[in-house]
């Protein structure tokens, strides 16, 4: 089960750093997302403990449609992490709100792949999806950016 305090901190620390780095002030709405947003769907986790890759089950992701994601976790040398605990959080940094749903891992698909259900984005614009990954190497976090 996820700890609400950790979830909250996760949700806000990452975007705040991103905003600071991108040099934009906090949130006048309807502004375009930062130009240099990293939109990659595979990347090392923040402390480099794992590599995380996500495959949204809907392509392109449509505003307002519930769907699932598959997350793959490996060690930096590419070995699948079979026993990760993953929690999901997210929101719109420019609007100051979270996800309209509470997605969860619904199945360990094996081979370091995990099924996440309950993903939904109810507005056009820039979204962040934060994963907290706890595996053999310890806890780490990673943020994916989505622009709808």
């Amino acid at each position: 089960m996820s700890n609400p305090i950790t979830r909250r901190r996760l949700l806000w620390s990452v975007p705040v750093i991103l905003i600071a780095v991108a040099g934009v002030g906090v949130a006048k709405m309807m502004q375009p997302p930062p130009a240099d947003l990293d939109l990659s769907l595979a990347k090392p986790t923040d402390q480099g403990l794992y590599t995380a890759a996500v495959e949204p089950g809907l392509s392109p992701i449509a505003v307002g449609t519930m769907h699932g994601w598959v997350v793959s976790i490996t060690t930096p040398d590419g070995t699948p992490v079979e026993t990760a605990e993953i929690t999901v959080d997210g929101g719109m940094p420019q609007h100051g709100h979270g996800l309209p749903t509470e997605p969860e891992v619904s199945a360990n698909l094996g081979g370091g792949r995990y099924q996440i259900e309950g993903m939904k984005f109810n507005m056009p614009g820039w979204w962040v999806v934060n994963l907290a990954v706890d595996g053999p190497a310890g806890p780490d976090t990673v943020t994916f950016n989505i622009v709808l």
Partner: protein
Amino acid sequence: MRASTLLLAALIAGSATATYRAISPKTNWTDEEARLVLSLGLSKLPPLPADPSNAVADDPRAAELGKALFFDTRFSANGKVACGTCHLPDRQFQDDLARAKGVGVTARRTMPIAGTAYSPWLFWDGRKDSQWAQALGPLESAVEHGTDRAFIAHLIETHYADQYAALFGPLPSLADVPNHASPTGLGPVLDDWMALDDTRRDAVNRVFANVGKAIAAFERTITPRPSRFDAYVDALAAGKDTVGLLSLQEEEGLRIFVGKGECTKCHNGPLLTDNFFHNTGVAAVPGLPEDQGRSLGTDQVLADPFNCLGPYSDADPGDCAELKYLAKAGHEMTRAYKPPSLRGVAGRPPYMHAGQIATLGDVLVHYNTAPAAPDGHSELEPLNLTSTELASLEAFLVSLDPISTEAQP
């Protein structure tokens, strides 16, 4: 290209239409604006989503029974109230009142029904998760129909037994069921429910749920009608000439709607609602009990025995993703309400969940000034639009009126 520039050009050329054509409508929108505008057109509306929780959702016989029930005033405490009393077919299935009048007066405004089959959540606070579960609410509300589920089951037995049996199988025996009984009732109505055994309670609940399922089958046929705006979007999508489909003012209003008005944050997609919940700082109505909006609605829908995961749902648990992954109520959901579809909105004042705002113009003033919420936190920020811009925005909203005013269905 801004409308002011266009207007200037129009004045010089002496005819707005001719100038507009010359400027080429295709280059009139930025890519981002065009993307948003196109996403709002009715032709982007997907086919009706299946309702796995309702096995008769798409059965025409159920829709026919549901239609009869929808307009049957016998299903009320005083014999005068039907769903159609508040949801008038020739008035977009609403009643033009700030607060509805049934057996008593409701605390909220009647919502239009078109397109609600697309919404995962029903009511202003989303305390129901399907059209059929929603329909059960007003029947037992003391201020709407003022009846109870035992009474409803008996009425079905008396007036609709054959139609019912054809859809759901023979009615259970109601011989030992008192005239009035419900777990949501008061006094003797509750006492009589408590006195029923589980088998009879279940039988009554099942008939009650099936009444909702038939009504829902009818409501699924109530869909939004095309507007002038949709004709404009279709032309834009096809790369055709959009001249004359919207006026310059309406077009400018549309630009504000998808742009600095920030309306598509919440009023997005072909129904112009995200079907989620937002606190927009609408005033509380003095004298009414405290209204917490979605924060109470989440608890209620999770506890509802008629929800997608309950014993009267026809869905597999795997089909209940909305309920399963529902965001638990936090501070964000205090006094948060479902944005109504803006289709046809100009033709149905007053506005907001208890009719707090009388005119469309005043609604736009509300958005422009973004007053603080009476409780919780408003998601709005002042827009500081000029009065000309507000007038354009209002003109655009009028273009969302259905072209045909013919009653449906």
